[in-house]
């Protein structure tokens, strides 16, 4: 199964992968609309989104949030995302079975079932899951949200992050025989 593998020696910390991810997962696939109309991003200075869900998306559409995250330390940077494990930690930890392994091997979440308990965040040893505050299936819980992780861009031949990377620091290939 093809997955996205980072090549950290080529990463220039530009974060275009995050931008492409956001645009790809937006309603309109237009950058300005994805960022401005569908919701502004907050507190970007540390590469995470800390957002008050009360201010989530304006157009009634879930606010786009990057599913791949550039992690940095010193001069090192690499774009990290869900490994789509064969025996996913998150599926084994999911409180109500909303995370599952699809037929083609991708690990996905049922976005209308996830209750934002964050057992998956606790379980994922790659830190690949983020919390998407723009949607909640349990609105009574403050700062709730749902599981948010890479879905390998089902509508594209090659995931958006791989396509956009200016130094080919991300590759989309099958390494299962290794």
């Amino acid at each position: 199964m093809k997955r996205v593998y980072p090549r950290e020696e080529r990463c220039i910390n530009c974060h275009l992968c995050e931008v492409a991810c956001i645009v790809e997962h937006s309603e309109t696939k237009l950058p300005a609309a994805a960022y401005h109309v569908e919701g502004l991003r907050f507190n970007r200075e540390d590469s995470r989104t800390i957002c008050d869900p009360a201010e989530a998306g304006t157009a009634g559409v879930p606010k786009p949030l990057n599913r791949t995250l550039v992690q940095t330390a010193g001069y090192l940077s690499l774009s990290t995302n869900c490994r789509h494990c064969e025996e996913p930690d998150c599926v084994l930890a999911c409180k109500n079975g909303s995370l599952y392994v699809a037929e083609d091997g991708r690990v996905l979440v049922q976005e209308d079932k996830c209750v934002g308990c964050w057992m998956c965040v606790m379980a994922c040893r790659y830190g690949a899951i983020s919390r998407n505050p723009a949607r909640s299936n349990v609105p009574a819980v403050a700062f709730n949200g749902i599981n948010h992780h890479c879905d390998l861009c089902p509508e594209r031949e090659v995931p958006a992050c791989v396509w956009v990377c200016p130094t080919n620091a991300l590759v989309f290939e099958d390494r299962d025989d290794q």
Partner: protein
Amino acid sequence: MEYYEEANARVALGLRRPEPGDWYHGYPEYHVERDDDKCIRCLVCVRQCPYDCTFYDPHRHGVYNVHENCVNCRRCEFMCPTSAIRITKWGAGFRDNDNWKQKTIRTVYKQADSGAVSLTGLGNDREYVSYFDRMVIDASQVTNPSIDPLREPMELRAYIGKKPERHTNPPEVYPNLKAELPVLFAPMSFGAIAFNFQRGLAMAAKEVGTYFNTGEGGLHPDLRQYGDHAIVQIASGRFGVSLDYLSNAAACEIKIGQGAKPGIGGHLPGEKVTWDVSRTRMIPEGSDALSPAPQHDIYSIEDLRLLIYGLKEATEYTRPVSVKIAAVHNVAAIASGIVRAGADIVVVDGFRGGTGAAPTVIRDHVGIPVEVALAQVDQRLREEGIRHQASLIAAGGIRSSADVIKGLALGADAFYIGTAAMVAVGCTACQQCHRGRCSWGITTNRPDLAPRLQPEVAAERLTNLLHGWAHEIKEMLGMMGLNSIESLRGNRLKLRGVGMTQVELDTLGIQQAGL
């Protein structure tokens, strides 16, 4: 804070006051215009700008610029995913004055600010005449039919080195370089340029069948495998020179001078001496690498002959020895002396040649154009009957295959391209090479900037450039009714001059167009 977090969080400088000690930055040269509607605050430009020009203001949730730091490298324009950025000239600039131009005034400001020598990178950017642009090439019509390069083989291969005096049987053969086309990569030292770029040059040289030159910086151990496509330099600092260095290479080159800064030595500012560079050059990390102006064991032509033969002995006469000089006054006489001293190759570097760091005033005012230097050297060597004893490589602002054709006609055997190679891999000629912050990862070894240029990408682009030029050269040769560069070399009749004085035409040895 972590290094990248600092870049991500770079915030606006506070209130600006008119700084009496920094007049140079008092008037920005460029304005970074950002279309606020298109800007999605992705912060890619903030992270990519190495010149402290772009920052994110979380209070206003917007991206802002310190315009006086902008050097017009255009990296932000290139990377912006919504094409929201446009670099423009700041404004009216100084009042129109052909004598006191913007650049002239700002240079005085800079010197009054610092009291230091103003450094710069790349080549002479002033409005001196370009003789290349005043020469035109012949084409075949009617009586001398042109040749179709798609139907006839065109010989672009250049053998570079000493040729025998006369035909004998068996022939006298001297070590020669064999380049599949008469274009080689100019000396650019590791330290002045990025490791990835030098690797790309080496890979492309191997792919195309030509050569790259290590410059003064020695040969990095990881590039040893490209030794048979490498010309290694012995410059005044003797950085990285060892027996292995010489034997592993295809040719050795004694650097007497370079077009960008004739008469003075190489200069690698301390900021650019990273650990890897220091190891390859065998100097302390962070220290300025200043090559002495003369080679301190070459004070006469006899000393040069000693060194040339010293190198030949050391390599057992298996490698051609090249001597590189800057094009200056009396270049023809100097070249003649060098040939008689035993050099197999003479490199003449004109005043448009690029550099990683040189005093601006020397770069812009010292040296002569390579076109006239080349023409005079070729003529003098022919007159003295020693033209066959050495090949001539011309360097210094070779920009296109047309320059190559014209240069061949003026008498060169081959050409070095430096700036053109950098532009091929993304250089935007912002002239900030000396600062070690190259936005494109070409002239820096800083670990955060180096990955911006990937060696395979560089190699592919350089290979493309040379293939394109090769094809164009074939077309132009065919167009002139020639099928070999040998037939073009020194063939001044294939050129005509436009807009030159008679003295200029005579110096170049060509006729006025129309005649």
